[in-house]
């Protein structure tokens, strides 16, 4: 296995990109990443595209060669990776493996999603298709309602409060306000979050990530070659993947995401790191409760302590551990199949010290956490500042 570096990153604005198609979004992110790495495109040996649901959202399958073609690199072997909302993270993992194994040298991993070409209701139904259709969705369980049940049980079992949930949104909006690519670069207040229209009790509108268009891409190469390119490199030190029962009701404890715990354990083991070594993390916050569970399952806080820790400000920028400095899915936005790559872009910017107002002080390690559906799949990456 070879060590792997990220030598270029690119990202589009996240939001309602009415005048951009999926291919344009993918191309924009990819070209920005190539430019950042100082590459022309001819050097690319493989393209992976993380995308959750182009078939349903824009009626287009087979999007990896489509994006390669329109990006001017037709002929480059290209593959789409789908794993629900973890598609982006899983694509990054495949790119990592391709380079680490020695099969390829220069690999581009992009993520893109165009969600606003369908109505809001349809977009929600498509998101819910990452649940178990036969055992969950068919009985009326939406994505929101399943997470609401998880939140309710977490509140019952650990005393997590609506204030603590709201604080996740307040913090992530505060971070997004410092991110020019964020869909909602605006601060909000706990009262505003708590009084937003109810979606599925106890989750209100501001406990939920939006529906977004957007894309992100990274360029990977063997670490030993990283310094020969223009872009400042960052190392991917380890990855870990985990899984769980597809349907929430099959799980022994719905307040813990076994997939996250397993993925984190693997990533920590492979890098010989502990949660204490991590300076910042981009965690999957499709709902406020998901961030609280993630920071527990990733080992940053004890189980049940995610809520109180958030409330005490321990996850704010430059506190105990900076969580979702980009604004997260909640406020930076959720182009669903791309979010794993959006997280990677944020981590690289942080580790290069280029995050401006939202810069974490002198970070060495950043962790990425991306889950699919209600957590039946999870992928964790740990990135290190170049040294």
């Amino acid at each position, binding site marked *: 296995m070879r060590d792997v570096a990220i030598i270029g990153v690119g990202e589009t604005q996240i939001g*309602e990109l009415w005048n951009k198609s999926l291919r344009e979004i993918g191309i924009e992110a990819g070209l920005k990443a190539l430019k950042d790495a100082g590459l022309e495109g001819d050097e690319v040996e493989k393209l992976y595209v993380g995308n959750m649901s182009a078939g349903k959202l824009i009626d287009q399958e087979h999007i990896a060669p489509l994006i390669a073609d329109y990006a001017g690199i037709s002929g480059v072997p290209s593959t789409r990776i789908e794993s629900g909302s973890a598609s982006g993270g899983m694509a990054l993992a495949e790119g990592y493996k391709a380079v680490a194994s020695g099969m390829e040298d220069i690999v581009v991993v992009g993520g893109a999603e165009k969600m*606003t070409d369908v*109505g*809001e209701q349809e977009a929600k139904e498509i998101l819910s298709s990452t649940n178990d259709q036969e055992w969950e969705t068919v009985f009326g369980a939406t994505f929101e309602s399943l997470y609401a049940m998880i939140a309710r049980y977490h509140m019952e079992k650990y005393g997590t409060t609506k204030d603590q949930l709201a604080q996740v949104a307040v913090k992530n909006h505060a971070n997004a306000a410092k991110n020019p690519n964020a869909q909602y670069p605006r601060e909000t207040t706990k009262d505003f979050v708590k009084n937003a*229209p109810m979606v599925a009790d106890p989750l209100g509108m501001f406990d939920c990530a939006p529906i977004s268009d957007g894309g992100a891409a990274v360029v990977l190469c063997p670490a030993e070659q990283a310094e020969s390119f223009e872009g400042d490199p960052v190392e991917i030190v380890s990855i870990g993947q985990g899984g769980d029962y597809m349907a929430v009701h099959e799980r022994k404890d719905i307040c813990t995401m076994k997939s996250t715990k397993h993925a984190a354990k693997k990533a920590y083991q492979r890098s010989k790191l502990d949660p204490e070594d991590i300076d910042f993390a981009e965690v999957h916050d499709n709902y406020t409760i998901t961030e609280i569970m993630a920071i527990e399952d990733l080992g940053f806080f004890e189980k049940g302590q995610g809520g109180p820790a958030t409330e005490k400000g321990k996850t704010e920028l430059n506190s105990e551990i900076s969580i979702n400095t980009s604004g997260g899915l909640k406020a930076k936005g959720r182009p669903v199949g791309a979010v794993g790559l959006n997280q990677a872009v944020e981590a690289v910017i942080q580790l290069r010290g280029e995050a401006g107002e939202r810069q974490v002080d002198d970070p060495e390690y950043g962790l990425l956490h991306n889950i699919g559906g209600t957590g039946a799949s999870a992928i964790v990456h740990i990135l290190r500042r170049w040294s």
Partner: protein
Amino acid sequence: MKTKEEVGIKGYAGYVPRYRITPKEIGDVWGKDGESMGKGLRIESKSVPSPDEDVVTISTQSAKWAMQRADVDSQDIEAIYVGSESHPYAVKPTATIVAASLAASPDLTAADYEFACKAGTAAFQTCMGMVASGMIDNGIAIGADTSQGAPGDALEYSAAAGGAAYIIGSDDLLAKFRHTCSYTTDTPDFWRREGEKYPQHGGRFTGKPAYFKHVTNCTNKLLDETGREPEDYDYAVFHQPNGKFPMKAAKRMGFSKEQIEPGLLVPKIGNTYSGAVPLGLAATLDHAEPGDEILVTSYGSGAGSDSFDIEVTENIVKIDDENVPRIEEIIADNEFISYSVYAKYREKISEGGA
């Protein structure tokens, strides 16, 4: 687009059905918080036509009153254009029924227009062109709708009924059209296909790339072409699908709340579609004094906007308020109904289940 000859408004009047329903009443049926939806949309109530009212009756009543104010005999009307997206017939003109109801001479040209919510102002421009070119002396331009919102859809909270008619000519003008321009693109934000009962819409797509883009670009184009600034106008009327959009657009372009308030009828009567700008302008003219200047911009989904630069003349003081009600009087005469009565009136339920 500047007219070569003087052309303007000789008479105007509007009509709004008297029945009202609140967003709360609608929301209660669908398990939604209608009250806060209403607050978000800035709609307190919307008008509902009775079973006997349609675009023909609304147009006819408005045109009758407008002719009365213009002191024009129906035999002297040479053109009638009715803009609506709820014409009673798919094939057969509303304009001919209105012409017959007004006892107009057969020596006229007539047609129906459809351009979502801006069909009424398209009729304005047609009559303006015909008058300015000397083809006709007097034409009637009408914008009226009994708009449709599918049960439970977001549109149901705003889709309302009403309209206004304008006698357009070149003499004895109450107000002059000094300039008009349009801005049109192919933007599918809202549509109803042949045979469908209710329209569909693109949700949030109806905002930024649709309403705001067209209203802002058309208004700015008018300001550019006339060399004027927002503060030069006493009043401004913008299309009003809800209360939020026109206020936001006005603010962005530099118009004040005071400038748009007299013509902002949507909080009380909802979105009257093709009737919205003609009614808003009528309510503004009700408040206007000689020399007042008014900027008007309509919006029709699909999509396009028409803007007008209007100057009010001294004749406005002679207007007949005795026999023709002002818009605010029409709106004040109302009766609130329940969702069940509304459902019957709008034929969402029918006696005998037919």
